[in-house]
Structure formats: C-alpha cells, structure tokens
C-alpha cells in the first residue's frame, strides 16, 4: 500500500511540476532549443543600425513534451490512488472480519 501511495503522490507532483514549468516558460506549443539574439550597432559607413543575429541555446519546455509527460504522470497518480484505495478497502474488510 505504501508503494501505491508513493506512486500516487510522486506522479501527481511530477504532473503538476511539469505543467508549472511549461506555464512559467511561456506555454510554448513546441519545445524551444534556441532563442534569437539580435546585436544592434551603429554602422558609420551606411549611416544605419546594423543588425547581427545569432541563435543561442535556450531550452523552453513545450507542450509537445510537457503534455505527454503530464498525462502519463497524471495516469500513474490515478492508478496509485486507485490501488491504494483498493488496498485500504481490503485491509478494512479483513479488520471487520
């Protein structure tokens, strides 16, 4: 029974944590690996602002990963809760007998 309880709470924690991280990181549909960084500098030759763009590593969790992980963890939590409840009911019936 203790194992099922552990699964229930552990999986629920993972589901909530993953969704929380996804929400805090901007609720992206796809997981981002990079972000665009624009360097702007005055260009005396052309009299304009010259832009140099580079992509830097920047991980942002997307729903493509967070969604399946949260669903799987949620399902595991539900299973843990159901099995723990069943074990508890069995123990209670033994006690009454």
């Amino acid at each position, binding site marked *: 029974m203790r194992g099922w309880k552990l699964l229930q709470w552990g999986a629920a924690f993972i589901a909530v944590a993953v969704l929380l991280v996804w929400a805090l990181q901007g609720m*992206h*549909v*796809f*997981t*981002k*690996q*990079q*972000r*665009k960084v624009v360097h702007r500098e005055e*260009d*005396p*030759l*052309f*009299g*304009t602002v*010259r*832009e*140099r*763009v580079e*992509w830097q590593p*920047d991980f942002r969790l*997307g729903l*493509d990963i967070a969604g399946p992980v949260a669903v799987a963890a949620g399902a595991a939590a539900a299973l843990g809760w159901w099995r723990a409840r069943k074990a508890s009911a069995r123990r209670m019936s033994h006690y009454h007998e």
Partner: protein
Amino acid sequence: MFIIGVMLALIVSAPLLAQTALPLPLKGARTVVLNNAVGQNLCQFVSSAPLEEFEGTADGIEGSFVLDPQNLEATRGRIRVAVASMRTGIARRDEHLRSPEWLDAERYPYIEFELQGLRQVRITERTAGRVVLQAVAVGDFSLHGVRKPMELPIVMTYVPESEQTRQRAPGDLVQVQSEFTISLRDFDIRGRQGVIGSRVGEVIRVKASFYGATTVSNKP
C-alpha cells in the same frame, strides 16, 4: 489632336522612360555581389497567428545584381535564399517548415527574387561618403515552385570605395534593405489542415538586409 495624343503618351510613359543617375562620378555598369564581410545578409520573418507568434531567420543568402550608375532603373539581378538555412529556434518546427507540406525544401531549395528593374527611384541622401535612395524593386518572386511578379520597396545605400570601406571588402559597398509581406496562399503553401490562420499567420512579414560589394575595384 495628334499633338495632344503625343503629349498624353509622353506624360503616361515618362515614368517608364525615366533614368535616374547615381550622383557620383562613376562610369559603367557594376556588378554587386552579396558579401557577408560587408554586413550580415539576413532575412528575418515573423508569423503572427491567434494561437502563436514566432519569428525566424534565414542567412543562406547569395546573389548579385548589375547596377548602372547612369540608369538605376535598369538594375537587374537575382537574389536567392536557401530554405535549409531557415531557423525558428525550434528544431521540430524547422523540420516541418522544410517538409513537403510546407516549403518542400527538397523540391524547391531556394526562395528567389529575380530583379527586373527599379521604379520610383528617389535619392534621399547625398553626402561625400554615401548616397541613399528609395525605390520599388520590380521582379519575379519564386517560392514553393510558384513564380509571381512582385514589387518590393527598398532602401539602397551606395558607399564609394575608400580606405574605410576597404577594411570590410574591396570595391564600392552597397546595402539594400526591404520590408514586405508574403501571403502563403499566393504561393500555394497550405501546410497541415487548420494550421494556417490559427498557429501560422496567413501573411508572413519579412525584413531583409543585403550587403554587397562591387566586383570591379575603383582603386588598386
């Protein structure tokens, strides 16, 4: 009646026959080849849709154009952007972008603009160091195997060769900037059903910066 007709024809055709000269002591046509040493050749694009806004870049740009300093309207050339160089910061979306459902990079590896001339050329700045002009670039835009005539507003800056310019590249230096929009439907880009209009904008905003140098150096 004949004279009125001739006058009307001249008035109508005047803009077509106009020849704008670069106010610099230059003779003969020059070929400008895009060169990243002059500045980063880059196209930036933004897709705005109700469910998602994203931006990306493409830096696989090559091309050249021939510029006649005495007749800027006759400028001709070709610039192309490699679809494979397009990035949005999300590897999976980049894969989708290149897939047959979207830009189909395998069949159509380049987005191309074939410049056939300039219209409405207007010199907006003229100093000893550079000449800035605004114009409308007329040509054919090819994307996803569809070729369409398009007119793009441009700002061109021409910098004659000097000690300063030679630090970047030999020859006269040229910068061309343009901002325009592309309708995906016009180029038969359909994507996955229901995605255009919800997660991908029907119209993509593009900001392009091209840098090049003339191949014939004025000075040894």
